[in-house]
């Protein structure tokens, strides 16, 4: 009887909350449209693949061999020869204006020295201010040069009569789960998790503080509603929104960014729900603690965005962090959901292999729900 009455009250609160969300354009945009926009925006922006690096060539030799060498650089999508220049001054300007990130200089006498059987030096100038792109681009250039050297060596050997040549060690690499090594395949799952944590905490963070600000909490306190009924009643509609966002974001990842879903979507969905229970309750805790909407929003963004972005292994590999920070990452639920989504979507593994992550998520959700009920004191503040 008592439990039934509780259920009725939880239902009443959920229904009321749903009506309020439906009538609040701001909430609707935030909860239904913002996640899709964020995924699209960051999905396109956040790519660590280095492609189309602008480069300039300074051919002082202007010989057949130098042209043949430089020709190699225009056959790759990673580099783009933007300019043929005729002086260092011009190179300086192009690097300063960020039009190019590297320049290659073929010195005078390149072909002559080569034909004379001497080794020749090439100059590669790289803009180190963006160290990631610079390193990667340098790698490309070196690979192209290695190929070029190899070709020449092979034809030399052929010329002197050795037809079949074999390398002593030949690497045949095969990349599993993400054969083209596309960074979007690991960025999009991370992005989905970040977006879900921010949005779910954010929309929930407004809910209790709004009741305090509008004075409706005072009325609620005098009714038989208990703290846990209020928390559960408010959780329900926000979880539905969260689940809707899971569908939207995963679907966008699939349709727009071609991130495959090899495993079971249902499993992914259930585990996302577990995650959302935690983050949504976190929003409710924040809301109960601040009792002011503006502050709630700021705190919610702080505690969800930064950790799930920086400490979840989404952008920065956890194994590279100092040990203390690595320890902290265990407290970040986003870390677990990222592993889960990558596992299910990219590797097609089942939930059975992800039980550590699931356990951590469940513990997190449990603790946060309990804490949110405790935090929601149903009396007026003492000041």
């Amino acid at each position: 009887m008592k439990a039934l009455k509780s259920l009725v009250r939880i239902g009443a609160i959920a229904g009321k909350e749903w009506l309020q969300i439906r009538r609040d354009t701001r909430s609707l945009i935030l909860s239904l449209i913002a996640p899709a926009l964020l995924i699209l925006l960051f999905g396109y922006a956040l790519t660590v693949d280095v492609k189309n690096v602008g480069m300039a060539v300074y051919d002082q030799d202007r010989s057949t061999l130098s042209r043949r060498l430089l020709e190699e650089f225009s056959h790759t999508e990673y580099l783009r020869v933007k300019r043929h220049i005729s002086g260092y001054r011009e190179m300086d300007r192009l690097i300063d204006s960020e039009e190019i990130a590297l320049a290659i200089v073929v010195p005078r006498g390149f072909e002559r020295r080569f034909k004379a059987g001497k080794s020749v030096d090439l100059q590669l100038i790289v803009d180190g201010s963006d160290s990631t792109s610079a390193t990667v681009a340098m790698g490309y250039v070196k690979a192209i040069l290695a190929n070029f050297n190899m070709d020449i060596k092979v034809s030399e050997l052929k010329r002197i009569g050795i037809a079949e040549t074999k390398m002593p060690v030949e690497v045949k690499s095969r990349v599993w789960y993400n054969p083209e090594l596309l960074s979007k395949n690991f960025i999009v799952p991370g992005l989905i998790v970040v977006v879900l944590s921010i949005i779910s905490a954010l929309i929930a963070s407004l809910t209790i503080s709004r009741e305090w600000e509008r004075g409706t909490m005072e009325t609620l306190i005098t009714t038989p509603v208990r703290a846990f009924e209020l928390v559960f009643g408010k959780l329900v509609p926000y979880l539905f929104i969260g689940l809707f966002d899971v569908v939207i974001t995963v679907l966008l990842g699939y349709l727009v960014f071609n991130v495959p879903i090899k495993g079971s979507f249902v499993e992914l969905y259930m585990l996302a729900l577990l995650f959302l229970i935690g983050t949504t309750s976190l929003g409710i805790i924040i809301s109960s603690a601040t009792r002011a909407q503006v502050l709630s929003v700021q705190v919610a963004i702080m505690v969800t965005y930064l950790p799930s972005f920086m400490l979840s292994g989404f952008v920065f590999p956890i194994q590279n962090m100092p040990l203390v920070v690595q320890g902290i990452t265990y407290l970040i639920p986003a870390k677990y959901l990222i592993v889960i989504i990558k596992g299910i979507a990219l590797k097609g593994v089942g939930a059975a292999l992800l039980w550590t992550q699931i356990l951590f998520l469940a513990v997190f959700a449990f603790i946060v729900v309990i804490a949110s009920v405790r935090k929601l004191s149903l009396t007026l503040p003492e000041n």
Partner: protein
Amino acid sequence: MTEYSVEVKDLTKRFGDFVAVDRASFSVKRGEIFGFLGPNGAGKSTTIRMLCGILTPTEGTGSVSGFDIMDEQDRIKNIIGYMSQRFSLYDDLTVRENLEFFGSVYGLQGARLRERMAYVMKMADIGRRQDAVVKSLPGGVKQRLALGGAILHDPPVLFLDEPTSGVDPVMRRTFWEIIYDFSRNGKTIFVTTHYMDEAEHCDRMALIIAGKIIALDTPSALKAALPYSVWSLRVERFIEVFEEVAALPFVEEAAIFGSDIHIMTKKGFPLKRELAGAFKVKGIKGFSIEEVGATLEDVFVSHAARLGV
């Protein structure tokens, strides 16, 4: 069943160093309209909030319908209705949605809920506005809805915190008719107000100043207990004259009442004669004075003066 709906003993609320309610003790009989009269900030709302479980008392004890306000809040919440001073229903829901929500929270369902909602809408005259979103409604209608929300579940004890503040005089009458009606049905009403004339509607009332209850009785007994005669003086330029009058040695207390000056003197003091003499000296002419019955405002003013506030 106790005879009293609300019993309070030495109830105290402190916010830091500030004593909002100072050892208040009183009892409200079942079916009574009990008024709490005092200026803003006197501790009326704080008292009501402690009784409704919104604030925890610092000291003292209290009970509502026999349930302890410290330990049995859950029981109390089922049997009280509360209307707060500030409108505190959902202004982004419609009238009907608000009533449905609060009805369900109190466990009303189905036919019973519909019946109670119909009653409340008729009583508060908000039926025509039932599908209007609350924030679009005028203040008076909102106020009636708030009252309706408080009585929806037919609570035996009703706490109304300044129910008529900001309500026009005609509406205030309607409000009091509803409150009377409620009382006739055996419900207890605990109401705060700072309107002196409204306090006359109460069966009994407590005067509260600076957190202390300074007098508690029926309105007529409070007036009868006043140890002064009350006079009404009508005079030209009454604001200037008021200063002169207040300074006279035999005037215990003087207060402006509309365009009259109310003067309190010791009982049986020959004020007509003495005042005529005093005015002659000061050259004040053209006045009329008569003894009048004390109002609650006189009672209040005399107590406030005695306490030096």
